């Protein structure tokens, strides 16, 4: 799901950096207020977990990759704002150190994977788990569905961002300057693999760890 350099036009990159600035600001404020010192190691584990889960990736036609993010789990355990910071750190390190995802696309990649994904996942979990006991089966199901929804929504956003590029940036003769694939092709390429494979990986990982936490460390739920 990582967008490389040169796939999004400058305006698109700028828009997503601009969108992420207030999100990062709010995230650091919320985390400053809510995160207890003893939760900091857990946040580090969450970020490292997301990083290593994203290394299990498969190339997708068109130049990006398909993978789980593990971020919905972090959002469920530490809240969506803390997850936003954790995934952002993972994505920035991937871009700077490993060239996985472009420098110019850090804003867009963070918007998709560090904002859309944890928030969609967190609120899906809250909605389905609403009124249920912390140790109930419904929480496990809610966690799985949250993982599936969060990851696929992020993939959909990525596909749409790719697919809008030929409309936004082209030469006078209509030749695409950046990502050349249209909306339909880009969305099918991005959403397809995630709906069929990676969404289920995110769902299973999220549900299994929540079930494990119910048994061994219920204070985190």
């Amino acid at each position, binding site marked *: 799901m990582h967008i490389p350099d040169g796939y999004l036009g400058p305006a698109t990159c700028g828009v997503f950096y601009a969108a992420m600035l207030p999100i990062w600001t709010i995230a650091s404020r919320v985390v400053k207020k809510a*995160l207890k*010192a003893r939760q*900091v*190691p857990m946040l*580090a584990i969450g970020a490292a977990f997301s990083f290593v889960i994203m290394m299990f990736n*498969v190339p997708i036609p068109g130049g990006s990759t398909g*993978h789980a993010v593990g971020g919905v789990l972090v959002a469920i355990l530490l809240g969506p704002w803390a997850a936003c910071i954790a995934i952002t*750190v993972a994505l920035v390190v991937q871009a700077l150190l490993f*060239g*996985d995802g472009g420098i110019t696309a850090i804003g867009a990649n963070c918007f998709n994977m560090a904002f859309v994904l944890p928030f969609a996942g967190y609120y899906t979990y809250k909605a389905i788990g609403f009124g249920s006991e912390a140790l109930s089966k419904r929480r496990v199901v809610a966690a799985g569905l949250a993982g599936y929804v969060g990851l696929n929504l992020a993939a959909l956003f990525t596909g749409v961002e790719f697919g809008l590029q030929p409309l936004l940036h082209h030469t006078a003769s209509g030749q695409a300057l950046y990502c050349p694939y249209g909306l339909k092709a880009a969305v099918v390429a991005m959403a397809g693999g995630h709906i069929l494979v990676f969404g289920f990986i995110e769902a299973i990982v999220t549900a299994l760890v929540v079930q494990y936490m119910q048994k061994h460390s219920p204070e985190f739920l």
Partner: protein
Amino acid sequence: MKITTKFWIGLGALAVLSPLGLLLPAYFKAGAPWYEKPSSIWSAPIPGYSFNGWPGEKGSPHSSFAYIISAVIGIVIITILVLLIGKMLSKKGDQDV
């Protein structure tokens, strides 16, 4: 054992398993080749989780080893960064009180 200790062990296991992401698609012959980077505004020190000048194709023992080392390096750097950020945020919080 503390739950955080168990998670660190789990992360180590995931790092060792990380080359599966290279081996499985290669085995099923899935996917197009890795994207060709159209711009060069930044050259990552460990591009694509592999070391420059190391021999071997995707899925070879060399690339798998580089992948595991990359995973460990990434985990260590990210952990340090988040611990620093966490310390910064909680320190400022203390001053407010």
